[in-house]
């Protein structure tokens, strides 16, 4: 990912970064609308304007097993797809598992591919990005410069507040994903004082709702995080990890997981394990893809459109 030369200023960082990735395109819709409450007078976020951003996920650069002998090539295809989008997104969120084994070469290869989009890219790590001897040092050296703790951070863009959460470290035996007390405390502070009308986008690798517990597809302490988000009128939670589209709406919170750009996984419980799903070669690209998010000023939730690499 491209690094900004003005550390400390995530907004500047956002503007300077290059877009990359094949993911989801999101349109963010307002939440600020016409009501100006007391809380807003305190926090006074920038007025929300319409824009789009993309989500890409689980590129697993370095993966070369039967389910996809060349994950680098399909990541490149995803980038080509982004470059061909009619509307240029403002930036890209990569929701983790950039690499297969956290090797320097894999991070470098991924970087060479994503930088072609010329857009800012915001990362969170997946468990595959924390496998180096330093247990995540390779990732943090590259992407953790302006982050806290295990790599969490937040930023604002055109009135929308984006929060990057890490739920792939210090996992407990028998458990699922975990945010941890320190990060939860930071999150509570990060959100406090913000007007409930401000749209919030949270992104993390492992889903923040329990998609399938037997395969660990959830986050043990997600309920605590969601309790801090409940008062907001528009919350969008974006994840990867399970290599398939899932969606759920709970109150004002919309959950969405994106496809991988590398290989599909079975639906929870439908198969012997959550391992890579081998499909006929001609079907593979219809199970990989990117997500576009569109934010329109107003009260509607962010619109998410998933596209496959086959289309």
């Amino acid at each position, binding site marked *: 990912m491209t690094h900004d030369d003005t550390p400390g200023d995530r907004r500047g960082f956002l503007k300077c970064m290059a877009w990359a990735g094949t993911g989801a395109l999101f349109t963010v819709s307002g939440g600020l609308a016409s009501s100006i409450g007391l809380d807003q007078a305190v926090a006074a976020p920038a007025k929300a304007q319409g824009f789009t951003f993309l989500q890409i996920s689980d590129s697993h650069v370095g993966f070369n*097993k*039967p*389910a996809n002998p060349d994950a680098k090539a399909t990541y490149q295809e995803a980038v080509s797809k982004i470059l061909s989008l009619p509307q240029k997104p403002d930036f890209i969120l990569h929701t983790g598992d950039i690499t*297969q*084994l*956290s090797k320097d070469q894999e991070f470098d290869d991924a970087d060479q591919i994503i930088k072609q989009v010329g857009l800012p890219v915001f990362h969170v790590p997946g*468990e*595959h990005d924390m*496998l180096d*001897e330093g247990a995540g040092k390779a990732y943090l050296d590259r992407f953790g410069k302006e982050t806290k703790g295990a790599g969490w951070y937040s930023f604002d863009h055109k009135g929308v507040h984006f929060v990057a959460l890490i739920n792939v470290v210090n*996992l*407990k*035996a*028998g*458990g*699922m994903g975990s945010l941890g007390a320190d990060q939860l405390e930071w999150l509570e502070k990060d959100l406090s004082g913000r007007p409930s009308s401000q749209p919030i986008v949270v992104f993390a690798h492992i889903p923040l709702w329990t998609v399938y*517990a*037997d*395969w*660990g597809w959830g986050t043990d302490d997600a309920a605590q995080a969601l309790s801090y988000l409940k008062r907001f009128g528009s919350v969008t939670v974006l994840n990867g990890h399970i290599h398939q589209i899932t969606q759920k709406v709970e109150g004002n919170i919309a959950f969405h997981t994106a496809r991988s750009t590398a290989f599909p996984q079975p639906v929870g419980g439908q198969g*012997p*394990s*959550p*391992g*890579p799903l081998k499909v006929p070669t001609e079907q593979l690209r219809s199970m990989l893809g990117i997500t576009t998010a569109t934010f329109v000023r107003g009260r509607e939730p962010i619109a998410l459109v998933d596209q496959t690499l086959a289309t």
Partner: protein
Amino acid sequence: MSKTLKAGAAALALGLATLTGAGVSFPALAQAPAAASAAVKIDNFVFGPQALTVTVGTTVTWINQDDIPHTVVADDRHTFKSRVLDTDERFSFTFTKPGEYGYFCSLHPHMTGKVIVKAG
């Protein structure tokens, strides 16, 4: 199908390694439990057998037969801890004290297993 073959080959290889490593004939091996070995296969995100009973001095070797990397980490996080095991990679640990040792995969913590070590 090729996976089953691979698994069989791995188990066989492990058995051979033990025999040649000990450099002894079968009766001598039977009298030398200190050189005993056992294997745990990681297959479809499951440690098999999930509970393994061995005697003190046994070396347990975990073999990852999945297309996804896994780790083997003791519940206390320090008694034993493998580096990441990619496909077909192994990790071995020799148990020198009796007890029950729970462990898990730190990438996929729903994967758990235990080794029960009995006094010789």
